[in-house]
């Protein structure tokens, strides 16, 4: 459309709209800037609430504290284990499962699809899931966290839909050469489905990286907890501390700056994969969207 077509009234509208969008965008961005500023401020400045936009009495003290805390590295390592292990596990289940569900000749296809969909409408709830994990001996174990959340109906259906929309003609040549189902999936479908698989993998990575509730419930051993659980522990210390008034006011770091520093450390990997995420999630949302 051509800018010249707009009347004076439209110009006001365009600028007002720009202004409102800018306002909303800044209000989204600001808390992150604020937290980063707190993490680089001195404990005293942060505890007296002086930080607004930029660090005050800039210092790396909080980061030094975090880097020298063994639990930080343990839980950071654990988060990597859960994220990488969990994502690989999910793909190992979901890719062949979605392929099978997408094949028209699969006997009982309606039934199998219903079996997947039903888990999205009806959930046994927290307690039976927890008791089941306990009965399976999967409490307090890396493997329990990795296997217990491997399959997700939404991701499975997203990938199945993508496979369904690949025209049959693509696999005809492979079939002529006598390829079996595994070879068709591996040589024909996987190369054609890179964006869909990337979308599913990124969804898995993000949900694993951010996973908190079940890690808190299922893991007791400090050596196994992921970063989010440890971060929660630090933040709740901060909250308790509030009630007895801050004890660390004149230190170079305080609970506020330390928890802000951990927040920054835990956001950075998300920011690193974010450009890839952005590239794919538009497609992914449309694939898994309303029309299934």
């Amino acid at each position, binding site marked *: 459309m051509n800018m010249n077509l707009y009347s004076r009234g439209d110009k006001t509208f365009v600028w007002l709209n720009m202004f409102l969008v800018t306002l*909303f965008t800044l209000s989204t961005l600001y808390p992150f800037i604020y937290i980063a500023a707190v993490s680089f401020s001195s404990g005293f400045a942060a505890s007296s*609430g002086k930080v607004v936009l930029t660090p005050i009495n800039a210092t790396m003290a909080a980061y030094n504290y975090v880097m020298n805390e063994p639990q930080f590295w343990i839980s950071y390592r654990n988060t990597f284990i859960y994220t990488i292990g969990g994502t690989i596990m999910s793909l190992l289940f979901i890719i062949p499962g979605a392929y099978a569900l997408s094949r028209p000749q699969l006997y009982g296809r309606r039934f*199998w699809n219903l079996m997947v969909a039903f888990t999205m*409408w009806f959930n046994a709830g927290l307690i039976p899931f927890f008791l089941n994990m306990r009965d399976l001996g999967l409490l307090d174990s890396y493997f329990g966290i990795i296997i217990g959340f491997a399959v997700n109906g939404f991701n499975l259906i997203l990938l199945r839909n993508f496979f369904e929309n690949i025209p049959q003609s693509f696999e005809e040549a492979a079939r002529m050469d006598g390829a079996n*189902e595994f070879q068709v999936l591996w040589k024909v479908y996987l190369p054609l489905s890179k964006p869909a698989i990337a979308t599913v993998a990124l969804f898995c990575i993000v949900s694993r990286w951010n996973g908190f509730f079940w890690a808190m419930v299922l893991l007791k051993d400090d050596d196994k907890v992921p970063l989010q659980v440890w971060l929660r522990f630090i*933040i709740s210390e901060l909250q308790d501390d509030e009630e007895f008034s801050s004890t660390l006011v004149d230190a170079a770091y305080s609970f506020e700056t330390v928890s802000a520093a951990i*927040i920054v450390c835990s956001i950075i990997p*998300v920011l690193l994969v974010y450009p890839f995420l952005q590239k794919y999630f538009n497609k992914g*949302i449309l694939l898994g969207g309303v029309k299934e």
Partner: protein
Amino acid sequence: MPDETRFQRVLFVLRRDWQLYLMLAPTVIWLLLFLYKPMYGLQIAFKDYSIFRGIAASPWVGLEHFHTLFGSDQFVRAVKNTVIISAFSLLFGFPVPILLALMFNEILHKTFKKTAQTIVYLPHFISSVIIAGIVITAFSPSVGIINYLISWLGFEPIYFLTKPEWFRPIFIGTGIWQEAGFSSIVYLAAIAGVSPTLYESAVVDGASRWQMMWKITLPSIMTTIIIMLIIRIGNLLEVSFEMIILLYQPATFETADVVNTWIYRQGLQGGQYDLAAAAGLFNAVVAFVLVIAANSLSKRYSRTSLW
């Protein structure tokens, strides 16, 4: 006779498609083991569950747990809070992504639009622990930026997170802040599908952008809006309890405690598995009915099923 032919058919299909079944098997076994087996375990809602006897051998008690639940002020309060929090989240949260999508659509500057979108989608991908950490820091009475502003304006600082009357606005506002941007994607996709000829003829007729936004864009995405509304109503009970666990404290239970946080405290922390499972069953059944109702509504409305 028909049974035998059916059996033969299954055998034939198995022989032909065994590779497909081999691919499907891990997923099916996983679903049975991790999602369907807990459904079997739900029977403890009607039993006096003891860890030592196990699920099957614990004695039946009928509806006793449900009587206890609905006689409990705390549980009834949790049900009320769930309904109130989700109703207000819907009321205030639902229009925001629509408005945002309309506004994004009116931005002509490509780079500006892209940058703004990149930023507002981001909070969706940030963990609830971090979001809660930011909220706790920002609203804290001694260090928080909000109270800094309040005292700068000459008022007394407020310890927001211990005030029951502040819990819901903070929780709902946080939810909107985190999800509105990302939720606008669906509407932007719908807007992208609106035929450009509609705008071209409107421009010829001398319509302003404001008029086109309300008279063309908004009506064109009405189907999407209604479908999203139906989905939201179907998920009405799905309050993000993880965030509530992170933000509430005993002082705010009065307005903050929802069914799932109650289940978490009674069951996972307090060990009353059977009673908490009964509450979970109640929650799941209501949610199921809502989802089914939402789907039949959307079928009638748009002739496209949600699944």
